[in-house]
């Protein structure tokens, strides 16, 4: 089981801020494929990966990073702090 969090317009498109997912995905990209296949709102959120960022256990990571041992995955658009 893994916690998946969504922020900003990713959260809005998917319609929820977080969910617990049972997955066998090996990498982030695998997990994205799995989510996109679920429903059109996921498809819409993950349509353009270049517009997305991912964090694994609250550290920025790349989409080919492995999920082994990860408890929390977060998807969000490029950050706009400051």
């Amino acid at each position, binding site marked *: 089981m893994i916690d998946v969090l969504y922020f900003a317009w990713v959260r809005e498109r998917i319609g929820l801020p977080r969910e617990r997912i049972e997955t066998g995905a090996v990498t982030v990209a695998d997990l994205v494929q799995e989510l996109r296949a679920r429903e059109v709102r996921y498809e819409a959120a993950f349509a353009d990966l270049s517009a997305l960022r991912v964090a694994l256990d609250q550290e920025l990571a790349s989409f080919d990073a492995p999920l082994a041992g990860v408890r929390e995955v977060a998807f969000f658009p490029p950050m*706009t702090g400051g």
Partner: protein
Amino acid sequence: MRVAVQPESFDVGAEVSAFSAGVRGAGAVVSFTGLVRDEGGSLSGMEIEHYPGMTEKAIAGIAVEAVSRWSLVDALVIHRHGKLAPGEAIMMVATAALHRADAFAAAEYLMDYLKSRAPFWKKELGADGASWVAAKDADEDALKRW
């Protein structure tokens, strides 16, 4: 070094005073404050979403790097989240160093990294509805100078 992520407003002047009073030995203090622009009256405010937990860690990491790279006497970062009105302070950084070049460089470094590497997302609230602020290529490019 102090990092605060909070929904409450803060008093920039009081923070600068307290920070400056605590940096005996430093010769230079720089502060930056980011304010909600009103875009000529077309914006009614801003809403800032963040990633609790990761935000504090990310900012602390950026601040620790700045302190070490420019031998800062001290550094401060305050960043709000939630709803803000035009003119309100969104965030501030302050840096203290022996000499001005280090204090300036560290403050600009903090700002460049907070823009693109701290998990905040700004939504502008206008007359025609709300829209997420898009990250600028220039902000990502700004990181390359460090």
